[in-house]
């Protein structure tokens, strides 16, 4: 299984990563190798192997509908680089 250069570009765009043109071939190579490794594992016969412990037979623990959090705006805004009037400030993003 091989990842193409175009697929690398698409993945980078979706993940919000800047990838230089020079690096694309290397990434395509590395990602293809990872998939090939997984492909190798696919070939192993596991029909007689019992699954390890896993949590999927459990179901979600639910919580009661109770407000347990206080207003902690000052603390939660203090960790952001820029704020104003109680809002987080971010570079302008409007979908056009």
């Amino acid at each position, binding site marked *: 299984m091989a990842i193409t250069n175009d697929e690398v570009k698409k993945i980078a765009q*979706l993940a919000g990563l800047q990838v230089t043109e020079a690096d694309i071939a290397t990434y395509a190579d590395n990602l293809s190798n990872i998939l090939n490794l997984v492909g190798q594992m696919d070939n192993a016969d596991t029909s007689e192997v019992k699954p390890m412990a896993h949590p999927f037979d459990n179901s979600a623990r639910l919580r009661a509908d109770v407000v347990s959090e206080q207003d902690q705006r000052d603390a939660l805004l203090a960790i952001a680089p820029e704020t104003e009037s109680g809002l987080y400030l971010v570079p302008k993003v409007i979908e056009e």
Partner: protein
Amino acid sequence: MEWEAVIGLEVHAQLNTKSKIFSGSATNYGAMPNTQICDIDIGLPGVLPVLNMEAVHKAITFGVAIGAQINDQSVFARKNYFYPDLPKGYQISQFELPIVGVGHLDITLEDGRSRRIGVTRAHLEEDAGKSLHEDFQGLSGIDLNRAGIPLLEIVSEPDIRTAKEAVAYLKTLHNLVRYINICDGNMQEGSFRCDANVSVRPKGQEKFGTRTETKNLNSFRFVERAINYEIERQIEVIESGGVIMQETRLFNADTNETKMMRSKEDANDYRYFPDPDLLPVRVTAEQIRQIKSTLPELPAEKQQRFVDDLHLSTDTATTLVSNKALADYFETGLKAAPEHGQLVANWVIGELLGALNKASLDITQCPIPAEHIGTLVARIIDKTISTKIAKTVFETMFNGEGTPDEIIEAKGLKQVTDTAEIEKMVDEIITQFPEQLADYRSGKDKLFGFFVGQAMKASKGKANPAQLNEILKTKLQN
């Protein structure tokens, strides 16, 4: 060529829980920005979401109310995309295994016809925060109070054919979520939002055309206008030789137009995968049975009961059940005049809604307690007052000046039913107007109305109209 539209609606209903879907933050609308957030809502590293049982309960309640299959196992998935009001970089939603499966909603159209619209699914997810794009010197402000408020996304089948049907479906759904108390339905505040998928095809063709999705329709009127605009636009494009592109569009309420927001090529690839932080949600048959048994009377059932048991006209029943608060008001009022459903309903729908409308109030802000409307009707029935006087009493009540009995007493409005008293009054009137009397007796029948008017005026409107007519007729002839 004759065209047919194919419409499917996606509704996001905010569930009216006290706390958020995965955290213990409050959910009140209109709080100061970022005062209802916690480490989970803003996606700090290392936090874990814990599902709110009330959100699950409300989702199941909805499923039961639309006769849907409730999936005994449903799974939360991550929908990945980047936007500043989505702190984690993904929205926790449900993808392959939603909590509510296929159900349906019956709608009534303006001409009285009924149609069944399929509901494909309804799934739980978290709302995103809000971005404010003004006044920050080229930056955007982010308020995360809304981030994590539980949403139920309700997806219809593409069963809808006209904008009017779409509105009927939405109104029915909007009414239902309030009846079963899972959503406050406040469209201005964004508690109930709609996206419309629209395509057109030549009438008779089975295959669907390419559809567009119009987002953010926050009033019934906008839904109707946006869909009609989109249908016309698509027909025009195709008839002039063009092709419809699959794209997301935004409705502009000022111009009544939809505008392209992004095309399919730029569309996000959300790369859904099961959220490893959350285990599957299991629902037992016992849980469903219990919710079913505590389900309140649904609008359609209430309407049927109003027609069958209270003998209301279908129109009246439809109007009353279209708003739960209105139906409750009517039923409370009815207790004072239980045998006279239609009359109580007429007062509620006619006088009361008219007066509320004029005062720009809704039924929940009504200045007249429901019991008093019932008493008013009871006083008409027991002939304490005439219908005409009742209107005066009504207006006085609307101004907050007491109960019907207090008003009738204080203003001396009690109807005169004493025959001797009315006769005396009539005698006086007849002697006051000898010329009119002569004219009447010589054949000017129309003057009868004149005498009724004079007598009523003399009695200050309190004479029993039927008795007065009777007595006048006899006396005028002699």
